């Protein structure tokens, strides 16, 4: 093969050429814009090198939204292709690439980034800390994630996208059946961003265990912080399995090893096994922060405290443990005997119990509450029934004998979308809307937000309920077309219309951000929702040090107590504050990782070795660097506090 041939797209089409041009033009526009408005320095100083958890959270949020749109366009194309029988909009290979990138982008680069965005922004504020335990590591986490995402998206225009599904099962993902570099991208991009995620896991466990405000015992932590702790615990235990599996897969593809091959002692099913050892905990990594968000929003707008705090915590701990006991339910049909399948069927059904407990706790919180319908509350209320349907169908899939019927049909696709969309997407939009005023100092428009909700909730139901029917009728997942005689046409058309509704909803979100940025009032105080937990006790916008005085906590709703029961949150005079310095090193290191990944994808060994040496040089530099951070003087704190006014003053 000629050197440059490998960079070409194996199956070019006009859509891809058009996107290449679009990507090129966008990059030029961004670079030109930044240069023209002289924003490079600002970008570097204030954002790229920042170690402030709030800014890192916002960068995660923007990236997640970007990826949501990328994945969303993929979804629309798939639904358009299958809307009518024997459609010729996309060819088979192109369709395979699209469902693969859709899955990876949505799970790894959208959903994960979204939950990490909100954890970053909210957790340190909720526990009254100045930042996370390892601020610079946090910056590195973000950039590794971002570079992984960019590397993955590059596959689309250079070398070809992966097409073996987001599960990338071997032997299909091996060199023999996936010749193009697509699957190399899959392995390396997920690897790079996975390292970032693992670091986030360690960082947040340390932060939550070690940096809580005085008085905040574990059982007085707000529920979102609890969910973040459990989520990160699962991350730390589950992600290493993915790391190892990806490394083995990479070696199979690049160096001809035989971990997952069908000959020479390899075991192709082991990939599926390892993938799901990570994969099932992963779905709980996605859902638990959502549970945490609903547990903040529902009490705030039902205007009473959360029902069953202890059982909420206990059920999350139980879920975290059980989530490691069920993975085989993803391949009941692979040929193992009835005993194995029965064991994992039972453990799978067991996990529905703690999940059910949580649903009832929310219902009991709502019961007797004085419910105020706001946008975040609407999403929470919409979540309950839709998620329950998704969960119940999950229990159906969990019965191994029955799963022979459902497995790999559209029924399965309906199940997981009906848990993931209300569980992650609704929660993230709800959380984003809820914490938006803390992030940006104004509220998103409620009227547009409510319209958005109905588009998104309605679109979700219309897009995925028909799949239950066509799935039971035998429509297999991941098929690029079907004949008219099957009778699937009508269900897929409905589903396409639903997808259009969802798309309209997402466009409305963008419009809402634009509209509110222009017209929303900036005079909203520090606590516009009349909320209950600590993040609302500081100013809008949040000063870089979060709290001028470390708050004293007495309950899981310390801020509410300070408003209603005369609890004093902030005691004592201002003291000098010690803050960490920004650093460009993590960014440089992540660029090196990006180059390393790219070089490995295309087997450019010399480049790979040089960038790997660069990575180690960065590590060495960090080991010998002396950086003691800086101090904010009392006068400066006084000045900032006087300028921003608000809750802290009223409380003193």
């Amino acid at each position, binding site marked *: 093969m000629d050197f440059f041939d490998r960079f070409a797209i194996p199956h070019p089409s006009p859509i891809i050429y058009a996107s290449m041009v679009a990507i090129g033009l966008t990059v030029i526009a961004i670079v030109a814009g930044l240069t023209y408005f002289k924003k490079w320095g600002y970008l570097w100083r204030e954002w790229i090198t920042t170690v402030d958890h709030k800014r890192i959270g916002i960068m995660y949020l923007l990236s997640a939204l970007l990826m949501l749109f990328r994945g969303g366009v993929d979804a629309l194309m798939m639904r358009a292709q299958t809307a009518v029988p024997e459609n010729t909009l996309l060819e088979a290979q192109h369709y395979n690439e699209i469902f693969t990138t859709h899955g990876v982008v949505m799970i790894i680069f959208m959903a994960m980034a979204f939950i990490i965005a909100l954890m970053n922004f909210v957790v340190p504020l909720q526990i009254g800390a100045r930042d996370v335990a390892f601020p610079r590591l946090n910056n590195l986490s973000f950039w590794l994630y971002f570079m992984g995402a960019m590397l993955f998206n590059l596959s689309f225009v250079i070398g070809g996208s992966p097409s073996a599904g987001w599960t990338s099962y071997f032997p299909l993902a091996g060199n023999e059946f996936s010749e193009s570099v697509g699957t190399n991208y899959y392995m390396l991009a997920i690897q790079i961003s996975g390292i970032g995620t693992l670091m986030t896991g360690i960082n947040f466990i340390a932060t939550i265990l070690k940096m809580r405000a005085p008085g905040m015992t574990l059982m007085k932590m707000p529920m979102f912080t609890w969910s973040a702790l459990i989520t990160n615990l699962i991350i730390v235990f589950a992600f290493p399995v993915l790391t190892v599996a990806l490394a083995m897969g990479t070696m199979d593809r690049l160096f001809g090893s035989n971990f997952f091959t069908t000959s020479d002692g390899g075991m192709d099913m082991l990939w599926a096994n390892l993938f799901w050892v990570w994969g099932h905990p992963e779905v709980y990594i996605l859902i638990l922060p959502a549970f945490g968000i609903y547990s903040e929003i529902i009490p705030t707008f039902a205007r009473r405290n959360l029902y069953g705090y202890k059982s909420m915590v206990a059920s999350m701990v139980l879920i975290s443990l059980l989530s490691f006991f069920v993975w*085989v339910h993803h391949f009941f049909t692979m040929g193992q*005997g009835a005993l194995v399948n029965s064991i994992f069927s039972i453990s799978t059904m067991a996990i529905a119990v703690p999940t059910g407990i949580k649903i009832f706790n929310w219902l009991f919180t709502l019961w007797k509450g004085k419910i105020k319908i706001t946008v975040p509350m609407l999403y929470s209320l919409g979540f309950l029934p839709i998620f329950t349907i998704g969960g119940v169908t999950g229990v159906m899939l969990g019965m191994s004998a029955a799963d022979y019927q459902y497995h790999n049909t559209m029924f399965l696709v309906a199940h997981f979308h009906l848990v993931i969309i209300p569980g992650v997407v609704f929660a993230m939009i709800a959380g984003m809307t809820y914490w938006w005023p803390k992030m940006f100092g104004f509220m998103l428009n409620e009227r547009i937000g409510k319209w958005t909700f109905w588009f998104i909730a309605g679109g979700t139901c219309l897009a995925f309920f028909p799949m239950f029917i066509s799935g039971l009728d035998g429509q297999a997942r991941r098929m690029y077309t079907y004949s008219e005689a099957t009778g699937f046409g009508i269900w897929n058309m409905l589903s396409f219309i639903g997808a259009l509704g969802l798309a309209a909803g997402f466009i409305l979100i963008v419009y809402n951000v634009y509209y509110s940025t222009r017209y929303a009032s900036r005079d909203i105080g520090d606590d516009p929702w009349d909320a209950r937990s600590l993040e609302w006790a500081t100013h809008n916008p949040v000063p870089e040090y979060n709290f001028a005085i470390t708050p004293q906590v007495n309950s899981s709703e310390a801020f509410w107590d300070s408003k209603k029961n005369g609890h004093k949150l902030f005691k004592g005079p201002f003291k000098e504050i010690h803050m960490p310095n920004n650093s460009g090193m993590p960014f440089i290191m992540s660029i090196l990782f990006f180059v390393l990944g790219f070089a490995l994808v295309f087997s450019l060994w010399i480049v790979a070795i040089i960038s790997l040496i660069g990575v180690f040089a960065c590590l060495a530099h960090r080991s010998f660097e002396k950086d003691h951070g800086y101090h904010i003087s009392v006068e400066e704190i006084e000045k900032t506090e006087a300028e921003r006014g608000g809750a802290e003053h009223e409380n003193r």
Partner: protein
Amino acid sequence: MKELFPRKQVMGFVFSLVLTAAALLVYFLDMSFAVGMTVLLVTAFIQAGLQFIVFMHAGETEDKGLIFTNIYYGLIIALVTVFGTLLAMVWGYV
């Protein structure tokens, strides 16, 4: 002088060398698969415990409850993963 000498650590170091040597014997001596595996597993677990307690100071601080909970939690998950995998990939076929 006595307080300054890190007795525990030196002993621990020597013991961990002994464990390593014992594990190496599996390679050099000609034993059956079962015996070799047993030696490796036993020495590995003792070695890990030693590292945690002597060199990583688990159990010396007041949050030792947290630390040991975490270790046991990890242990449970590791065992479930390993045995579950064996069950699903090797033993579970009739």
